[in-house]
């Protein structure tokens, strides 16, 4: 299948970006250097083209019920302009995907949501919503608008100033995890403030055809998926397909460290299973660690105890540009999960000492 391309594929190419396949999309991985892009976001601001993320629009009399039954968080707690991070789980409580849900202004007096599934999962997610809506006899319209919307993320301590300058309306009242309609160079956008990288940041959802106008309105470092990975890992954020993968590494939100998204007092697919997991406790947990010996942990490397018995797997790892130290995430038995615990990571056949650390690895915001 040919790769899908973001609306600014040509513009990024002209700017000298390198590209990589991600979730079926041909996305920029690096514009100048991951280190430079990473530093720009930590110190000033950077802009990411995240048009590979899905956008699904849900409205109608039963929109809230449908959203609540298919996501782990409590959607009914959202007022217009609020947003929320949630997991999408199966009957066993295993994470299928993670997502951000925005409550948009009501349409025809009905609650309306836009949620953002990960790259390449929008079609399956749309199908899931439609199937369950039909099965439960709910009245809601579910539209997959991934092909209609571009999405950009302006991130970093200076992002507030940049956005204030670029947006026609005042954004002073938009708090963390809040969202609103704004106008950029005459283009109407939906703007959220959820912090894709762990830094203060603003995400813009806008018509695909207006992508260039909005992208050009922000004069800051363009950033690719490479910097996304290093920034998010330093912030301790999980990456779908890497830190959990429905097919190859099924995990519950409690194992993946996103148990805070699970509201057991709501009714959703997987609730009963997760109630049991919550009561019994998990056997393995995702932990952050730092390599003490020289080397870099990478996805898929074994984690062993000091007797060389394999106890877990690295899910993400890199040389942290901010800390200038090798850091990673991986699943280990809970008895190895306490900060300060040491274990070993097998780097190309060599056993390297590592120590569990509290995440986020750095202070952000």
């Amino acid at each position, binding site marked *: 299948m040919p790769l899908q391309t973001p609306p600014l594929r040509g513009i990024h190419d002209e700017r000298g970006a*390198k590209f990589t396949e991600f979730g079926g999309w041909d996305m920029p*991985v690096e514009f100048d*250097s*991951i280190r430079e892009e990473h530093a720009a976001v930590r110190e000033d601001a950077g802009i990411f083209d995240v048009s590979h993320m899905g956008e699904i629009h849900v409205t109608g009399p039963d929109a809230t019920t449908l959203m609540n039954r298919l996501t782990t968080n409590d959607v009914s707690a959202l007022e217009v302009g609020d947003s929320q991070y949630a997991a999408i789980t199966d009957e066993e409580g295993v994470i299928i995907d993670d997502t951000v849900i925005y409550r948009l202004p009501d349409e025809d007096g009905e609650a309306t949501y836009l949620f953002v599934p990960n790259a390449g999962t929008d079609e399956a997610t749309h199908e899931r919503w439609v199937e369950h809506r039909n099965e439960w006899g709910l009245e809601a319209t579910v539209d997959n608008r991934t092909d209609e919307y571009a999405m950009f993320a302006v991130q970093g301590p200076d992002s507030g100033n940049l956005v204030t300058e670029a947006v026609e309306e005042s954004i002073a009242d938009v708090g963390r995890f809040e969202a609103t309609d704004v106008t950029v160079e005459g283009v109407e956008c939906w703007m959220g403030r959820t912090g894709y990288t762990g830094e203060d940041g603003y995400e813009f959802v806008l018509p695909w055809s207006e992508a260039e106008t909005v992208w050009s309105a922000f004069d800051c470092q363009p950033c690719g998926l*490479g910097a996304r*990975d290093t920034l998010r890992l330093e912030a301790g954020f999980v990456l779908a397909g890497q830190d959990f993968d429905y097919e190859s590494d099924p995990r519950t939100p409690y194992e993946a460290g996103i148990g805070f998204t699970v509201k057991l007092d709501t009714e959703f697919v997987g609730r009963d299973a997760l109630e049991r997991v919550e009561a019994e406790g998990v056997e393995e947990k995702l932990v952050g660690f730092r390599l003490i010996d020289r080397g*870099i942990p990478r996805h898929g490397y074994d984690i062993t105890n000091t007797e060389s018995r394999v106890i877990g797997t690295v899910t993400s790892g890199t*040389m942290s540009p901010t800390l200038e130290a*090798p850091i990673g995430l991986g699943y280990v038995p809970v008895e190895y999960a306490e900060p300060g615990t040491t274990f070993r990571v097998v780097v*190309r056949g060599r056993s390297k000492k590592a120590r569990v650390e509290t995440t986020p690895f750095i202070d952000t915001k």
Partner: protein
Amino acid sequence: MSFETPEERRYLESHEWALETDGTVRVGITDFAQDELGDVVFVELPDEGDDLTQEDAFGVVESIKAVSDLYAPVSGEVTAINEDLFDAPELVNDDPYGDGWMLEIEASDTDELDELLTAEEYEDQIA
């Protein structure tokens, strides 16, 4: 984008360069390779005195995003390694044919160099 490919060196398809002086072969990775890798953050090299065989992996170079094996252009004994790279791996990006060199091999048979690509052949490969 054009990359520097000095003429007096020989090249491997796996993007190492080799420069011979009196039987000693200095080895590094090419300008193209460092650009492809991006920010180099770690280099693993053999010890001095280790014996290498042509085309065998002798070490690893890692950037933030990728891991890449390094292959020996000739057989022989490692007589020097660039220890500066342990503290400053970014030298590979900054100066791949100069301060970013990786090791020196006392070649057991310098004729092996003739099997490697010329600068022109290497440029064709990366074009």
